[in-house]
């Protein structure tokens, strides 16, 4: 029997970015918050100190900071006709574990999405007609607008000290920035990071073709920075150990650097680490959450934690799984298209083209996680799709993030995999190559969804989450087209040689890292019949449950997903202050 604990006002599941931002808003108004985090604290470990921080084998290859697949993994089938099997060791995407969550080991690419992303269905219908959106593509508007989120984008960017160049200030296009950027109230808090040699080569080629390259918005701090809360960032060392690592210089803006140390000093805030939430208690008749049941991994004791409000701020996958495990809301059924929990599961459609220059020193080890140079001409609906057989697009960039040598070694096509010729090519090209990447959108498909696996369980005996996912025709066509655009830029660089030009195609391959940007499963929307949570992220079937994270996205865009979810989390914090004062459907 679980031991029952005293009731708390607000309990947050998961101690990552969203939880930290929600808790910041609540505790500022004197509202008590308890965060339950399944992992420990990285702050003082070898992952956060030199020299062991710089260990590619331990943190990258062996995934020392990631979800332990032995305890909990996901199962996959590429279609409903296949049998699902567990991913016994996942490479494709990497949920974090411990205080800070996946935003602890992120690269720090911190975009606002397009102004029209929250109204994407309306945008496509108004531009190309209702028939332009395929019947098997359930695009939905979010029920909120960019304008409503803009103040929270601004607050997040101040808190995280973003470095970048504005492209659109209150509707006026700014030279050097992204001309497709959603309008912002002012410049970024910090000037952009230093551009890499690869960025310079890319910039020249892109400008020569008439495009408008710009520095990627980065949460890697180019200078010492003090945020509005008085929290500090150190100076980025361009060490090339950003994504998959904890930043020992505290130069990467993360919740474990900027939020949790501050929150721990605030009265009314508590975080319990190694607290693995097993279930959100749900009173079906009252349509209310009663609290959560969790396993204290340190003592092995199970606890019942009653709560007035439960905020689900775990990783995308865990938010969906906990709703399914708790029987909260109706699971999505692709055969009948009934139910919403688990639908619109999206990934991203990434590809890249390698370029090789005998006489240019790329030095890939001189790199910050987000020091990319980007063009946005072919992203989302920034270009005319009326004559194209797909919707969506990709940001195209030269984003050298690291030169860690187990992972990052490009050789020209035709190089053997071992022997003297392999060594020669590796030695010749390591410091003289990079990849032009396309980070592509992934729009929802009726047959891409999440549910509970019937056969496989985690180490605690609970069903694993099952992905039914593959790249569908729209994404394959888009990726093929956009990758050719990337190749045109590559050709304009006049490299000595180029890698193959191939868009992303199925089957979805779990053995290859592509991106950690999985989205959907608990989508937001204005209508209960087509969404899990309201535009205020309030569960339609339980007014005291709120869900926040990329799980509420109805589609995935050609940008990193962190910016909008941070804005949504900050706004949720303010919404919860109102809800605590007077509980109701917001």
């Amino acid at each position, binding site marked *: 029997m679980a031991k029952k604990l005293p009731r708390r006002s607000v309990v947050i599941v998961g101690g990552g970015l969203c939880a930290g931002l929600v808790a910041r808003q609540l505790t500022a108004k004197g509202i008590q918050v308890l965060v339950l985090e399944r992992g420990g604290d990285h702050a003082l470990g070898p992952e956060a100190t030199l020299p062991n921080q710089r260990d590619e084998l331990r943190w990258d290859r062996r995934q020392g900071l990631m979800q332990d697949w032995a305890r909990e993994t996901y199962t996959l089938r590429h279609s409903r006709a296949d049998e699902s099997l567990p991913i016994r060791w996942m490479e494709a995407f990497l949920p974090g574990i411990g205080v800070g969550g996946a935003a602890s080991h992120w690269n720090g690419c911190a975009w606002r999405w397009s102004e029209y992303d929250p109204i994407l269905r309306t945008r496509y219908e108004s531009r190309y007609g209702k028939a332009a959106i395929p019947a098997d593509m359930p695009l939905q508007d979010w029920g909120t607008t960019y304008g409503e989120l803009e103040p929270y984008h601004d607050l997040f960017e101040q808190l995280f000290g973003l470095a970048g160049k504005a492209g659109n200030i209150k509707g006026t296009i700014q030279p050097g920035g992204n001309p497709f950027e959603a309008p912002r109230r002012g410049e970024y808090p910090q000037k952009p990071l230093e551009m890499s040699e690869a960025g*310079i080569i890319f910039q020249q080629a892109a400008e020569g073709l008439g495009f408008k390259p710009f520095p990627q918005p980065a949460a890697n701090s180019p200078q010492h920075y003090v945020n509005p809360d008085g929290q500090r960032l150190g100076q980025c060392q*361009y060490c090339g150990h950003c994504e998959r690592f904890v930043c020992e210089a505290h130069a990467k803006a993360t919740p474990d650097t900027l939020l949790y140390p501050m929150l721990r000093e605030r009265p009314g805030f508590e975080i319990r680490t190694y607290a693995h939430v097993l279930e959100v208690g749900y009173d079906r008749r009252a349509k209310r959450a009663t609290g959560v049941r969790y396993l204290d991994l340190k003592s092995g004791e199970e606890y019942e934690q009653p709560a007035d409000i439960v905020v689900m701020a775990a990783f995308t996958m865990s938010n969906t799984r906990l709703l399914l495990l708790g029987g909260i809301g109706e699971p999505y059924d692709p055969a009948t298209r009934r139910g919403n929990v688990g639908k619109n599961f999206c990934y991203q459609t990434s590809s890249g083209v390698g370029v090789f220059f005998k006489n240019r*020193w790329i030095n890939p080890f001189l790199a910050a996680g987000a020091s990319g140079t980007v063009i946005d001409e072919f992203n989302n609906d920034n270009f005319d799709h009326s004559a194209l057989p797909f919707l969506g697009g990709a940001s195209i960039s030269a984003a050298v993030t690291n030169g860690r*040598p187990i992972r990052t070694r490009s050789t020209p096509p035709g190089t053997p995999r071992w*022997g003297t010729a392999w060594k020669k090519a*590796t030695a010749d090209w390591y410091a003289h190559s990079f990849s032009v990447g396309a980070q592509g959108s992934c729009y929802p498909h009726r047959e891409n969804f999440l549910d509970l696996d019937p056969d496989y369980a985690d180490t605690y005996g609970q069903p694993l989450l099952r992905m039914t996912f593959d790249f569908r025709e729209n994404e394959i066509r888009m990726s093929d087209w956009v990758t050719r655009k990337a190749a045109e830029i590559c050709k304009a660089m006049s490299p000595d040689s180029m890698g193959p030009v191939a868009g992303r195609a199925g089957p979805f391959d779990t053995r290859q890292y592509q991106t950690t940007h999985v989205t959907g499963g608990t989508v937001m929307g204005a209508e209960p019949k087509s969404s899990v949570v309201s535009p205020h992220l309030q569960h339609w079937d339980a007014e005291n449950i709120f869900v926040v994270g990329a799980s509420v996205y109805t589609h995935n865009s050609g940008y990193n997903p962190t910016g909008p979810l941070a804005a949504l989390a900050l706004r949720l914090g303010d919404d919860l202050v109102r809800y605590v004062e007077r509980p109701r459907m917001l």
Partner: protein
Amino acid sequence: MTEQKKISPRRAFLLQAAGFAGAGSLGPLGAAAVEGAEPAPAPVPAAATPYQSLSPDEATFIEALVNVLCPADEYSPNGVDCGLAIYMDRQLAGPYGKGDGRYLRGPFRSAKPELGLQSPLTPEQLCKSGIAAANAASIRDRGRPFDQLAVAEADDFLKDAQSDRVRSDGVSLALWFNEVIYRLFVEACFADPMYGGNRNAVFWKMIGYPGLPATHALDMVRYRGKPYPGANTPKSIADFT
């Protein structure tokens, strides 16, 4: 190449230890190390470092294998002298080899390769099963165990294995080679030298990766587009401990 009888350094050592030392005790896989252009600074002889996971026969196989994947040449000493066999042994003996972090609950079924390895074996068990299967296939198809193949023939054998052209019972030699052996080989070359491979940071020097401490705030501007001086003298975690 006229020499047909090939003996790996470890086999040579074992033969010597057993009193069978003969004129041919250093076959081409070992001889290549002597002919290598740049002798590594006093490599520890492989036989002086005890193995933890590999049996003598398995070690013979792995030593021959890493010397095929990494022959001595102008870029590095042979694989054994670069520590590649020791690295693989240490990984197999450690948490990786024991399946740390791998989901190992049933039921087990075969799957498309995109779903990743589905074997109920640990990586150590899989590696060893593959060694036995590869040796059996080598004897069946080529008349000799793997470590006694000529270098070119051993190279062909591995190319066949990676492309799933070597028949074997039970263990898939393509999965064995691509998902276990080749991954370990790449790590052995490029992981921090403190793990036993990449001895003297030979592969980091080869490509020009400077290693630690990687505090490049000034270098980012100073050496943008230029050769980086520290690339010739890479530093390991061990140099800062």
